[in-house]
């Protein structure tokens, strides 16, 4: 086997320029894929991180039917006290849950005493909310990064539109579940930048203030946002929670609760899927590049060495060994291209991070691009390249192994 490798490597060196060009082509392909995967992957991770860690949480629990009507923030579909207790008990018992935050959501009117506009508000327990969506505090661009009773954090667009500043007094008026209207005065404690996606322009108040505005006396929440210890176990945990909550049914036998992952709540999941599809097609392109270049070079190699093939066949080399000889050449080309590509790709990813490119994502400006790639991803790309290189060599190698020695020896 070592001898076969020695012959293959020497043959590759013998046609130095062609080998160099083919290896370079494969290298460029691998570099392109690795850089694309790292940038697209980091963009996707950033996007998912922004969506989940600054607004939605990893998953949410609602009363059945709430999400279908979420545009109106229906108070009559809130989770009542017994339901909240059941959910709390379930989440407290789950080792996969890092934090969860009950939210009381409602729409109302926001006034600076001279102008009034609409606002969507989240009533939250600040500590629990900040643990569940840890990037929320990063969005607070002015004022305190905390929230106390009687305080409100408002979106920057609202603050600019109504010329409201930190420490200003404002009034929130909302319609209660029974149709009556109630209002409460707040002090603006913070102004937060908008986030792209559902809930990205909501304001925040303490959940007890929200209950006061809505005249809710007992515990009542619209949703429970959940943060997992391991995001990669999202589907499993969601499935587990779904399973455990499916037993909870109303008198009509219909389920009481719904579990939604961020994927079902945010339109950005479609973008994440598109990134995956693009990555898939980029990989297909790499496979095509490797397949065509290796097949081309191996067809040439067989054609140029017909007499040599005739000679080694005549002196008794078995067809399998002739096949191996050419397959190993393709394998070596694949290995060289994959290794060089991985090294150059890794270096380029480092350079991208060193330069520190910034880009905008919706309302968020100047996000730093952090290109990164898992070692496993590099291994997968390299293995794909090597497997495709071997596959591309098979046809020419098979042709060489089946060559008639007499015809081959006559070849000029």
């Amino acid at each position, binding site marked *: 086997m070592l001898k076969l490798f020695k012959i293959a490597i020497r043959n590759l060196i013998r046609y130095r320029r062609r080998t160099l060009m083919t290896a370079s082509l494969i290298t460029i392909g691998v570099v392109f894929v690795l850089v694309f995967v790292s940038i697209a992957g980091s963009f996707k991770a950033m996007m998912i991180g922004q969506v989940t860690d600054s607004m939605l949480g990893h998953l949410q629990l609602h009363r059945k039917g709430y999400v279908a009507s979420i545009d109106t923030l229906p108070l009559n579909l809130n989770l009542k006290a017994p339901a909240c207790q059941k959910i709390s008990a379930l989440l407290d018992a789950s080792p996969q849950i890092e934090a969860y935050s009950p939210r009381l959501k409602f729409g109302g009117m926001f006034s600076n005493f001279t102008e009034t506009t609409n606002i969507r508000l989240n009533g939250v327990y600040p500590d629990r909310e900040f643990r569940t969506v840890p990037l929320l505090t990063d969005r607070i661009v002015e004022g305190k990064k905390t929230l106390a009773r009687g305080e409100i954090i408002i979106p920057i667009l609202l603050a600019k539109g109504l010329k409201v500043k930190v420490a200003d007094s404002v009034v929130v008026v909302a319609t209660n579940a029974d149709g009556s209207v109630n209002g409460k005065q707040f002090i603006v404690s913070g102004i937060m930048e908008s986030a792209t996606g559902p809930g990205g322009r909501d304001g925040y108040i303490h959940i007890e203030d929200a209950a006061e505005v809505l005249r809710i006396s007992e515990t009542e929440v619209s949703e429970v946002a959940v943060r997992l210890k391991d995001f990669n176990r999202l589907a499993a945990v969601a499935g587990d929670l779904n399973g455990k909550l499916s037993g909870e049914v109303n008198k009509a036998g219909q389920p009481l609760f719904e579990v939604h992952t961020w994927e079902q709540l945010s339109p950005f999941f479609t973008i994440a899927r598109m990134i995956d599809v693009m990555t898939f097609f980029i990989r297909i392109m790499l496979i095509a590049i490797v397949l065509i270049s290796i097949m081309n070079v191996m067809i040439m190699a067989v054609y140029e060495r017909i007499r040599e093939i005739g000679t080694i066949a*005549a*002196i008794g080399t*078995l*067809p399998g060994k002739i096949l191996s000889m050419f397959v190993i050449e393709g394998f070596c080309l694949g290995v060289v291209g994959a290794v060089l590509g991985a090294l150059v790709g890794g270096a380029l990813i480092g350079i991208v991070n060193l330069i520190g490119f910034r880009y905008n994502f919706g309302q968020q400006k100047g996000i730093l691009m952090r290109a990164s790639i898992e070692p496993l991803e590099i291994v997968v790309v390299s293995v794909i390249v090597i497997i495709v290189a071997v596959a591309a060599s098979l046809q020419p190698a098979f042709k060489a192994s089946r060559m008639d020695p007499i015809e081959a020896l006559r070849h000029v």
Partner: protein
Amino acid sequence: MALISAKNISKDYAVGDVVVQALQNVTFDIAPASFVAFIGPSGSGKSTILNLIGCLDKPSAGTLTVADTDVAALDRKESAAFRGRHLGFIFQDFNLIPVLTVYENIEYPLIMVQNVPEAERRERICRVLEAVDMADQADKYPQQISGGQKQRVAVARALVTNPALVLADEPTANLDSQTAYAVINLMKRMRDERQTTFIFSTHDQKIVGEVEVLYRLVDGRLDNGPETNEKPKGGPAHA
């Protein structure tokens, strides 16, 4: 007992719609340790005979036995294995593998065909390199040595597996007279030392003058029986 026995062998080729009879009812026996040549003009069938004996082709009719094996019955893989075990080849253009050194070219059939252990391999290669007087050129590549040296390496490669039979197709055609005689002498000496049968396909008079048995081919038929050369067996060839 004959090393090679051919009985009424024929070989037909289809060229388009036309069937060409390359050999017609050829019968001969070749004894072990012979120094034999098939001669004749181009297209007379001498290379075809070599191809049949060398298991590179199969006769259309007749029986051909080489080293007690009916070679017509062998399949592709068995033919390759048979060639590796029993036959050596020497070509007009030397056909050394350009990416291997002289040593590695000779080593090739031992390692790739016969799977000989390394220690024995080294010993056999050194012996054959000494025999063909190429020991000092062992590390050179084919493009770094002369035509005569290349053919000596080819002889060494053919002999290193200790074959019963070496088939040489125009082995001196690309060599000058002096080198050609040197190569012929080398092959004769190898025959004498190793009792290897050498069969040539040639129209080179230098070989014709040195072989012990001669078969003349005309239009695919043997013209008379074997002719015996008067030259004393084992004597050196002369330039």
